[in-house]
């Protein structure tokens, strides 16, 4: 169930919120658990048991680690078993086909590929659940003895299937004690509406441009069309993903939770390293805490630094999908970040800020080509189109049409990816009047909600020229 569906907005959400608000504090976590399992089962009626298996593994690993508190070796053994099982489940369902296909291609074997469909959100909830056992082993959190609370943490529906990757340590206190207030709920609604609007108004509409361009023939694609297409995707993925994160954070607040932020105006970054500190922040910090730092972090020799960085970025790429282009995409950023660490960063800082920004933005945009194209040949031919080496025209009638009919949308997308609107809000609040700033915000939220509802409701509007009988 996605948040921008009728079933969620007009079915699941009102029912769950109603029950949640009227029930006593003691059973609230039980409601979170049940609603989370139902939410997941709605999208994955079978794979819900895979998720429950992951939860049981980590719950019991936690209990056992607590029981053998004085036995370091046993604790380590328990951690290893839990990590292996978590990653094992992830590998079977997410990377199974990829591994089998590559092994078959490499060794000429004919291992049967069951082609299991990917369980929704498995990469997110596995990482969330793993953060619990690893942190418990490190003694940075305490054991969760209640199975309801632990299951509730993993299945907490706002963050279950598309992030942010909320670590157990982020919400350890909140699971037992959290504030549910009118003010916080209203804040949550506001953030949720922004997210909904990002997804439905910006991401879906600009995404339609990329859908159109993506399936054209790159050999004859004019330069302008290629740029319009990949910029459209650049905004689509940002608003899709950050919109979903905003909805999750907003829904979290409605339930009384404070989740970590996941995006911080990534397209304002002035270096690739900065981009990754602003994009999908909870994933970056997960890899930092659980992979990069355990490997030695920054405090190692240059050779090890190269090794560690490439390992982390290869894994980051692979986390996004079981395909070589994601590995390539990850390594591409790994290499860029290494170069920035080694010398490029210092060099960049001497340049004008706009050049720094352009450098980072273009490299990120080129990264999206690697992200979106699954084959090397289409990556090559799309870059060919971007730089006009395919010999096609600079633009044609369709490029002009795409440009003119979407220029406004591009401007809005660009504007919303900056922090200008926030600065305007702060300016009005501090220099004019608080009520004025709040009224502006309320007006915007109401308009965005109304327009978003229009898009949700019309999802099935589909007129037929002739009555089908």
């Amino acid at each position, binding site marked *: *169930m996605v948040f921008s*569906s*009728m*079933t969620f*907005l*007009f*079915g699941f*959400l*009102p029912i769950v*919120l*109603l029950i949640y608000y009227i029930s006593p504090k003691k059973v609230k976590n039980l409601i979170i658990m049940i609603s989370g399992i139902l939410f997941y089962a*709605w*999208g994955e*009626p*079978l794979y819900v048991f895979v998720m429950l298996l992951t939860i049981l593994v980590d719950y019991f690993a936690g209990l056992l680690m607590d029981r053998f508190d004085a036995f370091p070796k046993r604790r380590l053994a328990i951690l290893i078993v839990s990590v292996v099982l978590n990653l094992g489940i992830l590998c079977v369902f997410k990377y199974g086909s990829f591994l089998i296909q590559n092994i078959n291609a490499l060794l000429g074997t004919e291992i049967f590929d069951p082609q299991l469909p990917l369980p929704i959100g498995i990469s997110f909830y596995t990482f969330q659940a793993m953060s619990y056992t690893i942190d418990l082993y490190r003694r940075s959190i305490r054991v969760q003895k209640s199975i309801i609370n632990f299951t509730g943490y993993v299945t907490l529906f706002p963050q279950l299937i598309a992030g942010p990757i909320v670590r157990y340590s982020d919400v350890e206190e909140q699971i037992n004690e959290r504030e549910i207030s*009118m*003010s916080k*709920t*209203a*804040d949550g*609604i*506001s953030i949720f*509406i922004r997210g909904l609007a990002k997804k439905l108004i910006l991401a879906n509409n600009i995404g339609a441009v990329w859908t159109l361009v993506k399936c054209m023939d790159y050999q004859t694609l004019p330069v302008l069309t290629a740029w319009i297409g990949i910029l459209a995707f650049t905004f689509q993925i940002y608003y899709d993903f950050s919109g979903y994160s905003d909805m999750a954070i907003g829904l979290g607040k409605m339930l009384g939770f404070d989740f970590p932020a996941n995006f911080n105006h990534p397209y304002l970054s002035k270096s690739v390293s900065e981009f990754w500190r602003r994009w999908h922040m909870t994933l970056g910090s997960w890899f930092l805490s659980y992979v990069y730092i355990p490997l030695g972090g920054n405090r190692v020799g240059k050779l090890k630094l190269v090794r560690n960085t490439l390992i982390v970025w290869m894994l980051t790429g692979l986390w996004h999908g079981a395909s070589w282009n994601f590995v390539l995409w990850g390594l591409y950023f790994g290499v860029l970040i290494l170069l920035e660490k080694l010398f490029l960063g210092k060099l960049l800082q001497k340049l004008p800020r706009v050049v720094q920004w352009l450098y980072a933005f273009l490299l990120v945009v080129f990264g999206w080509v690697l992200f979106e194209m699954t084959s090397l040949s289409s990556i090559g031919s799309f870059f060919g189109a971007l730089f006009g080496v395919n010999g096609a025209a600079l633009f044609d*009638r*369709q490029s*002009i*049409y795409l440009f*003119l*009919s979407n220029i*406004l*949308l591009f401007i809005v997308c660009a504007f919303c990816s900056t922090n200008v609107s926030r600065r305007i809000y702060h300016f009005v609040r501090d220099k004019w009047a608080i*009520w004025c700033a*709040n*009224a502006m*915000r*309320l007006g915007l*939220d*109401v308009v965005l*909600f109304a*327009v978003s*509802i*229009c*898009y*949700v*409701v*019309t*999802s*099935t*509007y*589909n*007129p*037929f*020229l*002739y*009555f*089908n009988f």
Partner: protein
Amino acid sequence: MASKRILLALFFAVIFLFPIVSLIVPDETFSELENRTLKSAPTLSAETILDKSFMDDTETYMADHIVLRDEIAKAKSAIELAAGKRELGGVYVCSDKLVEHIDTPDKTVTAQNADAINAFAEKYKGKIDTTVMLVPTAETIYSSSLPMSAPYFDQTTYIKSFYDTLQNVNTVDAYAVLSAHQNEYIYYRTDHHWTSYGAYLGYTALAKSLNLKAATHDMFNIEHVANDFLGTLYSKALCHEDFADAIDLYTYSQGDPVSEVVRYMGKNTQTYSSLFFRENLEGKDKYTVFLGQNAPVVKINTNIKNGKKLIVFKDSYANSMMQFLTLHYEEIAVVDLRYLNVPLSEYQIDLNDYQQALFLYNVGTFTDDQSMRKLAGC
């Protein structure tokens, strides 16, 4: 804090009231605006849950039956129009009309259609005189008034090169006559069909190929039967009710020759005394005043006892052409291959009875229509 209270109240009012009111209001089963049956309530069973059809159906069911659905859809169009969008639901919004965008055709479909027609003409060579008429749509006639250099595919070249692949058939140039009268009311502004006047112009071009002497325009009594027709393009774009169309019916001033119209729908037949189904003017899809909803076979008999019989393979553009062709034939059989699922003999049609065959399509449907291959089984 006041603004927070307002937001809270509004949000909860919307997410609670919409579903509750939608549940209370009885379900519609048919959407006139979309010309389709709406989703019925999903069935709950272990099977529908496991294959997720229950979940998908619930989503569709809720979206199909939400209260104020048509109004919200119109509001969305208004928003997009205000935001500068000029293509809504595959329809270009021009300054004075809506124009359907036709996708660049699939070459294989076109080649299949040519093969089917050539095979037909070859098979009945010397017995049936075959004529093909492809009518360009408004997108080509009005290509210069499309919004913002909108892309379109060149139907005139398409028609010419298609005609070049045909053998043993007469072809009709509809483009020339329509283009010459482009400043007149030849296409509906909110529907993808040509107007009766557009069809009349087509008839004057067609008459030469069929060896008919076309009746002049002043030989017809023109009756305005509607001026509030919002057609299929309106349904797609959902804007500009002010473009509402008028519908004109043409009857021959010397007396209507049509004596009987029989519609065959599967095993059912319905007999009428006129080409015009005036009761359909009450509904939304008013173009069905011409011959009614598309049926696999319609037979028209006239009191002109000249023994001439014509068989027409067609899409709905032909429906409004019948008001003119009926002046010249004793019988016209109108066959819509898209809806034909049994051989023509099941409808008591023997092709050997007909001296002339006409293929009458608009480019929009023709390029997308795979039913021409059914000809071989006729």
